Each structure stands twice: as structure tokens, then as C-alpha cells.
């Protein structure tokens, strides 16, 4: 982060006098406009308030002095009228004092000021946003503006330690869907964070803002982040999304997480979402929904690796390659007979460490530990702790393998019980 700032503060630019080519003051800067759909960094123009209505000056028509004075190169009578500003992102209206997401610091902050960077360019000026001020410096500058002389204010704020976020690490929150489209906010930067960090950020936002973020996140990212947020918030987010979008996200979730989530929603709502889901995913989730939340089956996921009893280590690795489930589920590969009954469990490391021709049957771990669907979740935690398991298989009355419980679910469970 740059410590020395040679930029121009938005707060200084706003309200500053604008002279025309004759040197006469013809107006004041009212707004600074950006067209993010064209260029997210470069200022498209200044909205100038004049006695004859608002004018729009593009940067190539002006010069900006060190004292933040704006000089236009044409007579005021030739300044173009400001047409509709609907498509623009206006720095004072849309950015100052609003909340933004600091992607770098992984948190939500409030904008106190914006630092612009003017560069001379073919007769005019090229004005770029360099960073957003979220610290005391911007706050003091704006509080004192008009109260103390500009020079004195700058002398004071220069002594303050700046807290800034480079513009490229800023993610905007826009709750109005129509504007979001115009501004092309797609939370690209946000979606590159770890889902758990996205979840933390989302928890700090107001409901409408959360919804806005989730509507534009990539489905896969949204699903992973959703799994990490507090269950109360989870439900309120999913309820606010339209069923089709909600279904797309829920499909991407771990089936057990999806089932837990739908279980929290009013029945009508979860039915709606289930209807929109792909049949295959829906079936898995519906099955899980039928089990009580506090039973082993209510905690399990149906995404697991099962191999026939006569498979070899090499075949197991092939299965692993084709597996689409989460990484937490692959610690053990389970053996099932022709009826689907659980007959053995083979830890992943044994498969990897043996020759591909080795039959899995010879690698099974003893004893074969499992729980029944209706077993209480406390038993699950006990067994996993006792045998140091990463995953625990769940079987039904006919001994058929129904799903597995992963260690991360048990950690969640233990935290809930605390």
C-alpha cells in the first residue's frame, strides 16, 4: 500500500470551482462519473453545476491544478449538457459513505474518501481512481472541509496514517438488480476468496446486500460459501433468492448440507426449490431429508466412494479420478458386495502405497467400523474419535451402505453442542 499519496482526494475535487477558457468561474464540480461497463478505473467525466444547469466535461477537456482547481479548455457556453446519469457510477452518490468489500483484507468497510490520480494526457487530463480511503485521514478531511482552509486541512491530514484499499481490491455492493446489471458488478474478485472468508463477509452485510452478493456469485462458489454461513443466515439468504437460482446453488452443495438447509426452510419453500432441482440431486436430498437431523443418517452425505469386493487398487484410483464429491469424502474407499452390503473399508493411503494390481480386499482396515442410519449423532462422534477416522460409513437395516459421515461434519456438530 502506498504511504505517500500524490493523488487528489475526491472530497477536495467535489465543490471545487471550475473556470472556463476565459478564466471566469462558470460552475462547481457536483459529481465524478464512471462508466464501469467500459472502464472500471478511469473517470468518464465531471458533472459541473452551473447557473444554466448541469454540464458534463470529459477529462480531455479539462486541466486540474495542484490546488484541485479545474480549468476547462473551452468557453462555458460550449460545455455539453449532462444527459441522464442513470448509467453512470457516481462517486459521491454511490461510493462515499457506503459499505464496500475489501477483498484484500477480507472484510466490509466504509468509504471515507476516494483518492484519484490525475495524469496529463494529450492536452487534457487522465483521471483514474487509485484507492479508497477507509481511515481517519479521509474522515477528518471531509469533516473539516469548509470549516478550515484547504491548506491547513491538508497539513493536518498528512500527519495521519492513511488506511487505504487499492481500487483493484474493492468489490462493490449494489442492491438494486437493475443498476447491478448496468454497472456490471459480478463480484469476480470476491469469488476468488476462500468460501469461508466469503461467508464471514456475507455475515457482516444487511439482508438485501447478502442477497445481491449471492445472486451474482458463481453457483459453485455460492454453494461452498453458503455451506459456511451461520444456519439462520443461510435460510434467510435462500428464502430471498428466486427458487430457480436457489435450486442451482443447492444442487452444487453437499447433499447433507443441502438437506440441512432445506430442513430449515418453510415446507412450501423447500418444495419449490426441490422441484427446480435436477432429478438425481433431488432424490439424494429428499432421501436425506427423511431422516431426523440428530441421527447418523441426518448427518451423512451420499457422496462417497464404493468399490466392488473384487476390485484392485488400480481400479480404486480410477474411481477416485472420476469422483465429483468433496475432498473430505475420499479418505476411505468402501467395499460393497453385489447386494450393496458394506463388507470392508480401505484407507486411501494403503491404496496409494500398494501396487495397482493388489486386490482391495487384502488392504481392508480392521475392525470394520460403521453406524446404523438411526444411531444417535453422539455415537458417531464417539466412534470417529475412538478409531481416529476421517469418514464413517452409515448402513441401513439390510446392511447396505447408504452414506458416510465426514470429520468436518462432526466438528460442526461438536461446536453446536458446546
Amino acid at each position, binding site marked *: 500500500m502506498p504511504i505517500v499519496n500524490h493523488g487528489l482526494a475526491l472530497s477536495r475535487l467535489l465543490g471545487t470551482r471550475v473556470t472556463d477558457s476565459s478564466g471566469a468561474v462558470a460552475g462547481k464540480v457536483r459529481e465524478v462519473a464512471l462508466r464501469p461497463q467500459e472502464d472500471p478505473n478511469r473517470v468518464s467525466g465531471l458533472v459541473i453545476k452551473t447557473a444554466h444547469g448541469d454540464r458534463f466535461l470529459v477529462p480531455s477537456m479539462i486541466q486540474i491544478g495542484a490546488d484541485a482547481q479545474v480549468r476547462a479548455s473551452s468557453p462555458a457556453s460550449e460545455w455539453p449538457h449532462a444527459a441522464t446519469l442513470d448509467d453512470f457510477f457516481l462517486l459521491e452518490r454511490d461510493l462515499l*459513505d*457506503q459499505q464496500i468489500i475489501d477483498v484484500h483484507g477480507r472484510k466490509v468497510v*466504509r468509504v*471515507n474518501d476516494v483518492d484519484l490520480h490525475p495524469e496529463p494526457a494529450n492536452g487534457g487530463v487522465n483521471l483514474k481512481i487509485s484507492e479508497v480511503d477507509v481511515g481517519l485521514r479521509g*474522515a477528518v478531511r471531509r469533516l473539516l472541509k469548509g470549516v478550515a482552509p484547504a491548506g491547513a486541512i491538508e497539513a493536518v491530514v498528512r500527519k495521519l496514517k492513511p488506511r487505504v484499499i487499492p481500487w483493484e481490491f474493492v468489490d462493490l455492493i449494489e442492491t438494486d438488480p437493475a443498476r447491478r446489471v448496468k454497472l456490471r458488478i459480478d463480484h469476480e474478485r470476491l469469488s476468488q476468496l476462500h468460501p469461508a472468508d466469503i461467508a464471514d463477509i456475507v455475515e457482516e452485510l444487511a*439482508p438485501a446486500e447478502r442477497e445481491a452478493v449471492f445472486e451474482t456469485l458463481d453457483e459453485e462458489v455460492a454453494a461452498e460459501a453458503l455451506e459456511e454461513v451461520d444456519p439462520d443466515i443461510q435460510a434467510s439468504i435462500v428464502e430471498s433468492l428466486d427458487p430457480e437460482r436457489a435450486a442451482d446453488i443447492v444442487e452444487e452443495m453437499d447433499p447433507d448440507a443441502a438437506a440441512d438447509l432445506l430442513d430449515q426452510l418453510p415446507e412450501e419453500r423447500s418444495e419449490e426449490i426441490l422441484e427446480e432441482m435436477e432429478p438425481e440431486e433431488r432424490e439424494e436430498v429428499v432421501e436425506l431429508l427423511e431422516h431426523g437431523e440428530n441421527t447418523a443418517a441426518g448427518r451423512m452425505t451420499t457422496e462417497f466412494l464404493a468399490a466392488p469386493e473384487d476390485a484392485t487398487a488400480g481400479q480404486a484410483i480410477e474411481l477416485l479420478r472420476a469422483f465429483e464429491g468433496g475432498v473430505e469424502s475420499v479418505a476411505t474407499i468402501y467395499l460393497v458386495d453385489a447386494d450393496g452390503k458394506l463388507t470392508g473399508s480401505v484407507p486411501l493411503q494403503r491404496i496409494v502405497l500398494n501396487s495397482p494390481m493388489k486386490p482391495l480386499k487384502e488392504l481392508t482396515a480392521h475392525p470394520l467400523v460403521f453406524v446404523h442410519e438411526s444411531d444417535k449423532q453422539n455415537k458417531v462422534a464417539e466412534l470417529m474419535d475412538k478409531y481416529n477416522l476421517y469418514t464413517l460409513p452409515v448402513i441401513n437395516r439390510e446392511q447396505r451402505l447408504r452414506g458416510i459421515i465426514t470429520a468436518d461434519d462432526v466438528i460442526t456438530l461438536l461446536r453446536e453442542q458446546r
Partner: protein
Amino acid sequence: MLSRWWIKLLLFFSVVGPGFITANVDNDAGGIFTYSQAGAQFGYSLLWTMVPITISLIVIQEMCARMGAVTGKGLSDLIREEFGIRATFLMMFALVIVNFGNVITEFLGIAGSLELFGISRYISVPVCAVIVWFIVVKGTYTSVEKVFLGASFFYVAYIIAGVLAHPDWSAAMVNTVRPPSFHDFHNSAYLYMIIGLVGTTIAPWMQFYLQASVAEKRVSIKQYAASRLDVIVGCLFTDIVAWFIIVACAATLFAAGHTEIHDPADAVVALEPLASKYASILFGAGLLNASLFAASILPISTAYTVCEGLGFESGVDRSFKEARVFYWLYTILLAAGAGFVLIPGVPLVKVSILSQVINGIALPAVLIFMLLLINKKELMGSHTNSRLFNMIAWSTTVVLILLSLAYPFTQK
């Protein structure tokens, strides 16, 4: 039978929400002193204020709860986003000043209540300040909240005491519904007390606190009906207690010609019909509970409000280094508030009532912001204020401004 009773109590606590808590904190030391003084000084003749105050309180608190549910944001957040940093700063500055007065009042309550048990304020106040600091910063606040809330049933003592004091019921009832005569308003002490009564019942900080709690609790607009009920019940409970405190004091203190309360010991008399020689224990315990509870909520909620509005890091889950302004503000409010009480010769009750009057003078500014915000369509959608609500809230604002302006003119 016993288990049923417990279930009922548990059910009650499960619905107790931000509205009820806010209303209860409202009956803090400043409240108890102001209501007592009102009864002692003017007998039943200020009871009429309870009706308009209750209506205003319900309307205003409902507005806050609604804004919190619809926007999911606190009042200071909304002021910042809609009116900019300067308006927010001025509002926050005023709030810190006003709340500092309230914090002082809570420590006055702590000092006064424990002095009834013979404990010097030079011991009780610093000890309690440290306890409060640790309770909040070490984060065991929610469990403590339940204890305080349970103990708020001390207030029921006033209701019983009011009944046992055999007040003149018909005079009390008539004075509750009879509009005041214009002549009364020429009396500056009367005006002063009215502003204090409004200020203590509808304190500015409560609006920030309530809206932030509703937003924090993630009450959605669908669950809002329950929240509204919580707010209404809380307001009614507060004001019924206030009414009985005035009646109890009118029937005992005023009737005995004891019209000036200088310290808590004077006010103990009001509880004598209920507890005779134990009255001072009952009064002291109730006052201590109210003061401690409010002393733990007020400074922390002030620090939250200010930091959120101005965009500083806040929250007890952050480290001191991460949220410096937050911790300093909290600590200074607490320490300076406690320190003020230790200045020799500070008149307990007078300062308490003065701080409630300042609340009343500052309230209109908060109300104006609230009204501007809640009537914004972009913000509230279809949940903007109804005409009736606007009328009540605007009248409260205007009347308070007029009272504050009129007060200097009545001084001779």
C-alpha cells in the same frame, strides 16, 4: 405444577426480545429518580404525561424496530449512508455527550444504592466499573443479561407498594386522563420535569440500541409481527411501572410534604408501605440492579453506535489493537462516568434529572433523522410510515422543541 410454572417462565424469556430489554434498561437510575421526583414534587398532577409519552414511545420504538427489520441496518449506519459523514459526526458527538450524562447517572445509582447498605461510593463505584468492564469485554454478557432481566421484576415492587400506599385512586385516574391546564406551563419547574420525563422514557440512545439489536438479531420483515408485539409489550411495561412509581411517591412523599428528593434515602419512603423496615433493602437492590444493567449496556452501545456510524472497527471480538477507537471510547465513557461520581459534593438526584432533561432536549434531532429515513421509499419500500405515525412522531418532535424553547422563558 412446579414444572408448568417453569415452562411458562421459560416461554416468556424465549419471546423476550430487544424491545423488552430496551424498555427495561429505560427504567434505569435516571428513570427511577425522575419518576420519584415527579411524584414527590407534583403529586398526581404529572400523571397525564404518561399517556402521550407512552403513545409516542410505542410509535418511535416501532419505527426503529421496523427500520431495523426492513433494512437490516442500524440507525447510525442509515444516517451515514443517507446524510453523509458530517451529519453523522455531529449526531454521534451529541450522542456521546448525552450518553456520558446517562453513564454518570448509572454510577450515581450504583453509589446511591450501595450507600444505603453503608458502602462508601469510593469503594462501590470503582469496583463496579471494573466489574462492568470485564463483563462486557470478556464477553459473558448474554448470560449476565438474563440475570439482570430476571431481576427487573424488582419493578413489580413499585406496583405493589403503590397499591399498599392506599393512594387516592380516583385522583390518580382523573389526573391520568385529564389534559393539563395551560396555566401549569408557566411554571418552569413543571416544564423542566416534563422534559425530564420525556427524556428518560424516550431516551435518544434507546433508538440506536433498539434498531441495532433488531438488525443484529436478523429479524426479517416476515417475523416482524412478533417484534412489534415485543416492542409494544416492553413500552407498556415500562410506562406502567413509571406510572406506579409516580403514584407510590405521590401517595407517600408528596402526601407527607416531602417534596424534594436529594438522595436515594429520601426515595426509600415510597416503598415503605410494602416493606416497612426492609424498604431500603428493596429499593437499594432494585436501584443497584437497574444501574448495573444500564451501566453495562450504555457505554458499550454508545461505542458500537459511534464506531459503526463513523466506520471504525468495532466489536468485543476484535483485539484492542484492531479496534482502538472502540475500546478507548468504551473505556473512557466508563472510567470518566465513574470518576465524575467520585467528585465530592455531587448532588446525586439533581445531576440524574439534569441528564434526563438533556436527553429530552437532544431527542428531537434523533427523531428528525428517523422520520426522514423512515419516509424514504427507496429505503423502506412499502413499509414507510403511515400518516398517523408520522403525525404522532412529528408532534412529539415539535412539542419537545417547543418545551425546550419555552423553558428559558419561564425562568424568573
